[in-house]
C-alpha cells in the first residue's frame, strides 16, 4: 500500500504544485487553514481533514513538507509514547517512521514496559516522501505553496468567550484573502526567527529557506496582543561519511527484530538485516579547548534566550560540565545518504572553528563538513494564553501548535498538531472543542503542562512528567485512545477503529481465559518446573495471578493449557504487561478520578481575578491573573495556590453556573451524573 502511495505521489506532483499558482483552482473559503508544513502542520492538516473539514495547508515550499530539519530520528523515551499516541489517533508520524526507519531500537528495554522508548533512525528522503504522499491522498485536503502575510480577524462571536475571531489569511503575493472558520499556526522557528553562525546573524527559521513572515508576527503581537517570549535551539554540522574513521568509533547495532511504531503495522518497511548501525564516539580535552578559545566568536551562546537543558549545544555542555568526556552519536541520515549526523555536537561557532573542533575527536580527525551547524532564535507565544483545545483564548478559531508554543521535538509538535487540527476541525464544523485528560495520555500531559504552567525553556516530554506513567504505556495507547478517537473525536478511520476493537476484545477474552484456568500453587510448580511462587501450597492461583511473576511467560501458561490459551499467542507480550501493571493501575484509579474531576471544572477565561468579589489573597489573585488556569485542576497545580483559594474558586464556579465545555466528561458522564456529580470534586488536597 505504501508503494502504491509513492507511485501516486509521482503522478500527482503536478497537481500538487499547480494549486500554488492557479488562483482559479484555489478555493477562497475553507473550513480550516493550516499554516506550516512541519510535524505539527502536517498532523494538523491531516487530522482536520479526517474529521471532515475542508482543509488548506499553506507552506513556503512544498518540497520541504515533512522535512526533518534537525535529527534524523523519531521516538525515544517519552517521545516514543507520544508517537504511539499520535498513531492511535490515526496521525501520520508513526506510520511514516515505520516506512522511513533504517535503525529501530527500543530504549530502556531493561527498565519496564511502561518506560520503553520506541525509537528509530530515519531516512530523511523516505520520511518526506511518505508524509507528502499521505497528504496528497487525503480527501478534502489541499496544499498550497505560499507565504502568509497577515491573519484576518474580526469581531468575536458574542456568545463565545474571546475578543477577536479569526476569519482567514492573506498571502504575501496573492492580494485576495482566503477565508476560513479556523486557522492553525504551526510556524516553528520562523516567527521572528534569526539564524546564528559565528558572529553573523541573518533573519530566517531554517538555513536555506525564505525568512520569516513579519506580518504574521505583527498580527499576533500587535493586533491580538499576545505575550511572546524568545527561545533558542541549534543543529550540528553534517559530516561526510567517507571522511570519518569508523574504526575508531564504537558500533551501536539496532534491535535484531525491529518493532514498528504504528498499531497498524506488523513489521517495518526496512528489513531487519538491512538496518544501518549508529556509532558512539566521545569528546576530548581538545574539543573543550576549541570551545573556550572561540567563545568570543560565538554570538549565539552569548545571548539570553533559553535553550533546552536536555539537548544542549556542545558549547553549553563543556562550559557547564568541564573536564568530562561527552558522548556523541554518529547517526545515519538515510540508506543512500553519504552523510552522518553527529548527535550531541550542535554548535554555532564559525565554520572553520567547527571543523577544527570536530578534528579534535580521533574518529573525526579527517572529517569534512557538508553543511555547518548553526543556531536559531525564535519567538514563541506564551502557551498559558491557550485553552486545552490549543485555541488562543482571546481569539476564536485561532489554534497554535508546535514550537510556536514553546516546545521542542518532532513528537511534541506532531502531538499538538494533531490535537489542534482536531479542534480546528471541530470548531469549523460547529462541534464543541475537546480536551485530552492528563490521566489518559501523554498528549494530555503535554498540553496541560503547556497551557496550565507555561514554559521557561523549550519543553520536551519526559516520562517523569506523567503522574500515571504505569498506565500511559506505549503498549496500550490504542486501547486508551483509538475507540474514543473514533466514537467521540472523529479523527480515527473506521478501519483502524475496527482493528482496535478487535484487539481490545481479543485481549479481554484472553484475560478472562487466563482467569479461568486455576491450579493450586503446588500444581503450578509441578507443571511449570522450577518457578518460585511466594504463595503457600494450598493457595489457588489463576493464570493471570501467575503471569504477574517475573519468570512466568504467557507461552509457559499456554503450554499447560493449550486448548484454551494457545489461540491468544499474538497477544502474549501485551498480556504479560497487562498482568504485571494492572494491580498498580487499579490502585491509582482514585487519584486519576480526582484529577479528572478537577479537570472537568472549567474556569472562565475572562475572569477578572484582581477584582473577583470573593476572599482571595492578593498573592493568589496575582498568580491566577498571570497564569489564568483553564480548569480548577490546573489552578490546583499552580505553585503558590492555597487550599482556601481553591475552595473560593470552586464556590465561584458553582455559583456562576459555569459548566465545562471542554472536557472529555462532557459527552460521557455528565448526563448520567447530573450537575452535582460533575461539580463534585470532593478530594481536593487541602495540604499541598
Amino acid at each position: 500500500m505504501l508503494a502504491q502511495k509513492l507511485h501516486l505521489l509521482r503522478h500527482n506532483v503536478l497537481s500538487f504544485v499547480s494549486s500554488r499558482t492557479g488562483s482559479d483552482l484555489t478555493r477562497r473559503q475553507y473550513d480550516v487553514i493550516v499554516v506550516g508544513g512541519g510535524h505539527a502542520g502536517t498532523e494538523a492538516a491531516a487530522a482536520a481533514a479526517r474529521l471532515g473539514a475542508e482543509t488548506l495547508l499553506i507552506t513556503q515550499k512544498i518540497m520541504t513538507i515533512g522535512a526533518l530539519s534537525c535529527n534524523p530520528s523519531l521516538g525515544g523515551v517519552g517521545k516514543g509514547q507520544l508517537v504511539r499516541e499520535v498513531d492511535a489517533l490515526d496521525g501520520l508520524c508513526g506510520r511514516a517512521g515505520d516506512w522511513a526507519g533504517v535503525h529501530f531500537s527500543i530504549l530502556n528495554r531493561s527498565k519496564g514496559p511502561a518506560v520503553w522508548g520506541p525509537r528509530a533512525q530515519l531516512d530523511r528522503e523516505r520520511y518526506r516522501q511518505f508524509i507528502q504522499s499521505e497528504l496528497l491522498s487525503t480527501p478534502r485536503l489541499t496544499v498550497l505553496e505560499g507565504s502568509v502575510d497577515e491573519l484576518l480577524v474580526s469581531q468575536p462571536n458574542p456568545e463565545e468567550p474571546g475578543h477577536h475571531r479569526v476569519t482567514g489569511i492573506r498571502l504575501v503575493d496573492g492580494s485576495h484573502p482566503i477565508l476560513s472558520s479556523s486557522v492553525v499556526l504551526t510556524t516553528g522557528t520562523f516567527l521572528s526567527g534569526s539564524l546564528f553562525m559565528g558572529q553573523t546573524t541573518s533573519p530566517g527559521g531554517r538555513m536555506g529557506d525564505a525568512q520569516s513572515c513579519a506580518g504574521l508576527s505583527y498580527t499576533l503581537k500587535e493586533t491580538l496582543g499576545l505575550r511572546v517570549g524568545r527561545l533558542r535551539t541549534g543543529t550540528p554540522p553534517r559530516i561526510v561519511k567517507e571522511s570519518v574513521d569508523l574504526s575508531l568509533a564504537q558500533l551501536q547495532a539496532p534491535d535484531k527484530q525491529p518493532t514498528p511504531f504504528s498499531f497498524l503495522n506488523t513489521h517495518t518497511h526496512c528489513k531487519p538485516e538491512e538496518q544501518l548501525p549508529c556509532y558512539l564516539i566521545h569528546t576530548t580535552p581538545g574539543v573543550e579547548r576549541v570551545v573556550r578559545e572561540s567563545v568570543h566568536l560565538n554570538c549565539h551562546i552569548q545571548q539570553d534566550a533559553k535553550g533546552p537543558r536536555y539537548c544542549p549545544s556542545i558549547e553549553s555542555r563543556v562550559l557547564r560540565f568541564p573536564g568530562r568526556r561527552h558522548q556523541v552519536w554518529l547517526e545515519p541520515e538515510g540508506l543512500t545518504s553519504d552523510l552522518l549526523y553527529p548527535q550531541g555536537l550542535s554548535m554555532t561557532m564559525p565554520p572553520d572553528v567547527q571543523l577544527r573542533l570536530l578534528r579534535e575527536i580521533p574518529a573525526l580527525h579527517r572529517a569534512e563538513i557538508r553543511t555547518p551547524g548553526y543556531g536559531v532564535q525564535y519567538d514563541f507565544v506564551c502557551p498559558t494564553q491557550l485553552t486545552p483545545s490549543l485555541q488562543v483564548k482571546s481569539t476564536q478559531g485561532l489554534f497554535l501548535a508546535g514550537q510556536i508554543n514553546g516546545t521542542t521535538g518532532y513528537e511534541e509538535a506532531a502531538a499538538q498538531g494533531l490535537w489542534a487540527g482536531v479542534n480546528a476541525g471541530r470548531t469549523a464544523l460547529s462541534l464543541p472543542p475537546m480536551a485530552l485528560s492528563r490521566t489518559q495520555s501523554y498528549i494530555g500531559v503535554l498540553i496541560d503542562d503547556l497551557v496550565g504552567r507555561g514554559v521557561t525553556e523549550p519543553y520536551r516530554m519526559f516520562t517523569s512528567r506523567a503522574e500515571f506513567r504505569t498506565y500511559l504505556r506505549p503498549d496500550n495507547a490504542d486501547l486508551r485512545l483509538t475507540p474514543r478517537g473514533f466514537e467521540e473525536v472523529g479523527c480515527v478511520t473506521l478501519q483502524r477503529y475496527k482493528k482496535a476493537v478487535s484487539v481490545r476484545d481479543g485481549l479481554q477474552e484472553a484475560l478472562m481465559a487466563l482467569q479461568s484456568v486455576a491450579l493450586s500453587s503446588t500444581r503450578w510448580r509441578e507443571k511449570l518446573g522450577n518457578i518460585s511462587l511466594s504463595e503457600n501450597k494450598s493457595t489457588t492461583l489463576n493464570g493471570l495471578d501467575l503471569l504477574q511473576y517475573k519468570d512466568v511467560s504467557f507461552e509457559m501458561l499456554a503450554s499447560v493449557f493449550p486448548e484454551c490459551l494457545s489461540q491468544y499467542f499474538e497477544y502474549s507480550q501485551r498480556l504479560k504487561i497487562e498482568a504485571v501493571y494492572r494491580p498498580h493501575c487499579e490502585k491509582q484509579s482514585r487519584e486519576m478520578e480526582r484529577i479528572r474531576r478537577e479537570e472537568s471544572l472549567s474556569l472562565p477565561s475572562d475572569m477578572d481575578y484582581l477584582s473577583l468579589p470573593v476572599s482571595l489573597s492578593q498573592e493568589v489573585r496575582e498568580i491566577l491573573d498571570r497564569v489564568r488556569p483553564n480548569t480548577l485542576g490546573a489552578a490546583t497545580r499552580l505553585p503558590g495556590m492555597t487550599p482556601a483559594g481553591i475552595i473560593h474558586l470552586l464556590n465561584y464556579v458553582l455559583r456562576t453556573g459555569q459548566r465545562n465545555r471542554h472536557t472529555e466528561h462532557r459527552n460521557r458522564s455528565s448526563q448520567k451524573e447530573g450537575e452535582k456529580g460533575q461539580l463534585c470534586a470532593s478530594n481536593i488536597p487541602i495540604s499541598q
Partner: protein
Amino acid sequence: MSPCTWGLWRSAIHTLKTFSRASPSARGLCIPTRAVCDAETIFALSSGHGRCGVAVVRVSGPASSMVLRNMAGLTQALPPPRTALLRRISDPQSKELLDRGLVLWFKGPHSFTGEDSAEFHIHGGPAVITAVLQALGSLEGVRPAEAGEFTRRAFHAGKLGLTEVEGLGDLIHAETEAQRRQALRQMDGELGRLYQDWSYRLKRCLAHVEAFIDFSEDELIEDGVLNQGQRPAAIVSPIAGTTRDIVETSLDIGGFPVLLSDTAGLRDSSDSVEREGVRRARQRVEQADLTLVVVDSTQLPPDPQLVPAFLQEYLSTVLPSPEAGMKAASDRVLLVLNKSDLVPEEQRERTEGELREITGLPPACFLSCYTSTGLEDFLTVLQSRVKTLCGDPLSGAPSLTQARHRAHLQQSVAALNQYHQYRDQDLALAAEGVRLALTHLGRITGRVGAEEILDIIFRDFCIGK
C-alpha cells in the same frame, strides 16, 4: 516505632494481595471504572480538643457502615438511622474494649456530609479518644480527615446553604492555619528535621531514578539509593559543659508523644563552642512547652529557708521574660533537684517542707539519677503536667496530628517496600514506589512536583544524548 512499622507492613502486604486478586471484572482492560473510584472514608474528632465529658468522633464515607459494625460489634443489622444506641466500643483487630458509648448511624444522603456517616459519642479522656482514633485508623480504606474535609464534603453534596458557603473558605483557611502552626511547631524540632531530611533524600533518589529512566545515562547514576542515616548518641560525663549541642529523643509519657531535648547546661563559659551550646539551649527553652530545670542539690544553700529565694533567683536567670514568667513558670516549669543522694536526708526533708509552703515557685522534685530515688514521684508529676498541657485546646490535638502523620508515614514505608520489591524487575514500578513514598511524605512536609525533580536532574547530571 518498630511494632507500629511492622503492623503497617503487614497491612500493606495484605492490601497488595487484595488488589492483585481483585481483577475478575470483565472490563479490566480499560482501567479505572467508577465503582472503584468512590470517595475514601474519613474520620475525625469533631468535638473540641480540650478536656470535656463527651467526645464525638465522626466517620463519613462509603465504609462507614463497615466501621460501625466493626467498632461497635454489630454483627446483625445496623441500628435505625439517627437513633442513639449504647454499645461497647472495641478495637476491631485486638477486640480490646476501648469504651462504652453511644453510636449513631446516618444513612446517606441524610447526614451532615450527604454520605453514609457514623458517630461515636465516647468519654472525653485523651486516652480513650486516642485509642478510638487509632482503632479507626487501623481499618482498611479509612483515614484521618484532612482539615475541613467534612465541611467540604458537605459543601459538595449541597448540604450547606449559600450563606454558610460564604464562610467556608475562611473556615478552611482558619483550620488549615491552625494545622499549619501546629505543623510548624513540630517541624521545628528533631521530628521536623527528620521529615525534611527524608523528603530531601527521597527527592534526590527519585531524581536519580527518573534520570536513569528518562535519559538512559547509566554511568551517571550513583548507587546506594537508600542508605539510612545514623542517629547521634549522647555523650554523658560528670564534667560540666559536656553536652553542647541539643540531643533530642521522642518519648511516650502517659500516652502522649513528647519530644525531650537535652540542652547544654546554662552557665557562663569562655569556650566559644559551649557558649553556642548555651545560646541554642536558651532558644530551645523559649520554644518548649514544658521546661525541666535541673539543679544540682549540692549547690543549694544549706539553710532550707534560703532555698526558695535561691531558686527564684536561679529561675529568673535561666528562663526567658522573668517578669511575665512567674505565672507561666508554675505551669510550664518543673524544678528537678538532682543528686539528692549527696544531700543529708534531714536537710532534704526540711527543704521539701519549705518549698511546699511557698507559692509562686514551680513544683520541685528531689531525685537522684544515680540511685533512682524519687524518680517514680517525679514521673508522676511530669505525666500529670503533660496531660494538662496536651488537654489544652490552644496546643491543638497532638493525637490527631499524630494519627495523620502515622498514616502518611506508614503509606510511605509501604511504598518504599514496593521500590525494593521491583528494583530488579521493573524500574517503572519501582520508581512508582518512590513517587508514592514522596507523595505521602509530601502530605506532611509539602508537595513535590515533577518540575522540582527535573530541576534536580539537570543540576546533577549532564544530559546530552
